[in-house]
């Protein structure tokens, strides 16, 4: 069913009792053309673009838990493309461009809000780095302008720009096209449209082995039995090494916990996103009114989906100095997701030495913003059997 104001009114008339299911819960078929391991945003986007861009619909997405229950539902929902290197800038900006039309494309409101993202500079080096990054972005056609502390104060009055704090705000840079989106809706929107193309989304189905014969992938072993496939693509974030090992691959990634938290909801105080890489404080306000706060990664390997209190304390120290009004707010929830960190903090979307087996990993702390672009490029890599030039 197309979601529209008319269908909304029609369903309201029937007391919302007749909405169809957004996607089926099918049993796995014995064989597919393509299996995608991982039913997060990236995997669901890959499935959708396989169908939409490449006409491949005999596809299954296998998810060990529930859709978007991993990092897709655990991030701080920030979307931006202000990257220094050409390779990153082009890929992330493709993603941002897809975000801009995503609600219409999916017929699902992903609540993308181009409210702007400001990166703060707290020392001379930060200022110079932001200036350099701004120039590089503009050469790639990406908007990124330097802003003074006074301009930042006008945009976000809750910020403390006193020069006497430990990490004073010396300036910043703003990408106005950036913003945030409802992370769950991105996964659900892709799932619904992929399902409409006939793609099977199979939850509670954990992959336990990759079947390989003569250097070519033939299928996967799962907790719901063996499934054959001509091609298999894995996009599993923190579990990349685990799946990679099943296919005999060694990957240059390490899994770490990345934590985030929300305060109790308050009236609107912030209509942009502020990021401080130097002190690892990331803040925006959700539509419910909660301040959404992100921290840096925990400093040790983990698959535990939770982190240490020291990281939260460190994040909050910076937060209360930069935004003093939060001092007496309560933290409602904290949580962690497992991210796959590469030495160069740049993702890998690639063929592998195993014929027909593809990996998409290494998104580290910045995966959510890349969801549409990652899926779009990975679908191309799988369908054409070669990387897209954006990879």
């Amino acid at each position, binding site marked *: 069913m197309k979601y529209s104001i008319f269908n909304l009114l029609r369903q309201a008339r029937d007391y919302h009792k007749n909405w169809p299911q957004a996607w089926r819960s099918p049993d796995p078929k014995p064989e597919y053309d393509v299996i995608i391991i991982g039913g997060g945003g990236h995997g669901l986007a890959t499935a959708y673009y396989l169908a939409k861009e490449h006409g491949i619909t005999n596809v299954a997405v296998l998810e060990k838990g529930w859709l978007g229950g991993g990092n897709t539902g655990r991030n701080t929902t920030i979307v931006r493309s202000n990257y220094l290197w050409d390779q990153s800038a082009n890929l992330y900006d493709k993603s941002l461009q897809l975000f801009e039309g995503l609600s219409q494309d999916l017929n699902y409101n992903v609540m993308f809000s181009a409210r702007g993202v400001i990166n703060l500079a707290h020392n001379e080096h930060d200022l110079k780095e932001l200036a350099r990054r701004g120039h590089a972005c503009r050469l790639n056609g990406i908007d990124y302008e330097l802003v003074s502390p006074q301009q930042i104060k006008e945009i976000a009055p809750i910020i403390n720009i006193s020069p006497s704090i430990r990490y004073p705000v010396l300036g910043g840079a703003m990408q106005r096209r950036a913003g945030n989106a409802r992370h769950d809706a991105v996964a659900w929107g892709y799932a619904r449209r992929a399902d409409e193309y006939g793609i099977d989304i199979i939850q509670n189905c954990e992959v336990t082995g990759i079947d390989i014969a003569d250097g070519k992938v033939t299928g996967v072993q799962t907790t719901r039995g063996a499934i054959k496939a001509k091609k298999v693509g894995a996009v599993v974030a923190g579990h990349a*090494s685990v799946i990679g090992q099943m296919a005999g691959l060694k990957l*240059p990634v390490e*899994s770490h916990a990345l934590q985030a938290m929300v305060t109790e909801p308050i009236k609107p105080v912030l209509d942009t996103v502020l990021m401080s890489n130097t002190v690892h404080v990331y803040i925006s306000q959700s539509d419910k009114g909660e301040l959404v706060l992100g921290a840096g990664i925990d*400093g*040790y*390997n*983990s*698959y*535990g989906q939770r982190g240490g209190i020291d990281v939260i304390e460190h994040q909050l120290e910076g937060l209360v100095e930069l935004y003093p009004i939060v001092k007496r707010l309560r933290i409602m929830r904290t949580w962690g997701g497992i991210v796959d960190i590469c030495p160069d903090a740049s993702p890998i979307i690639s063929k592998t030495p195993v014929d027909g087996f593809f990996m998409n990993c290494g998104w580290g702390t910045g995966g959510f913003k890349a969801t549409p672009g990652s899926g779009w490029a990975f679908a191309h890599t799988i369908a054409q059997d070669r990387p897209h030039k954006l990879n």
Partner: protein
Amino acid sequence: MAAQAHIARPDPHTASDKEWGEYLFMRKNPKGVHFERWFHANGCRKWFHMARHTVSHEILAIYGITEPAPKLDGGEGTS
């Protein structure tokens, strides 16, 4: 802060680029027992080794940085 322990540094004069790249960038990332070198930054500032489970975060052994990895029930430094 912690990272993989027991990494042998190859001779930079004889190591191939591949060996040197592996030494610099490739790390074990087990879902299970991991042998790590830790630095107690907020306390005694001591360097030490720890065997730790990466899902439960259970600490299984603590030992000096010159000692070999201990043998543990249910896993050793292989994965």
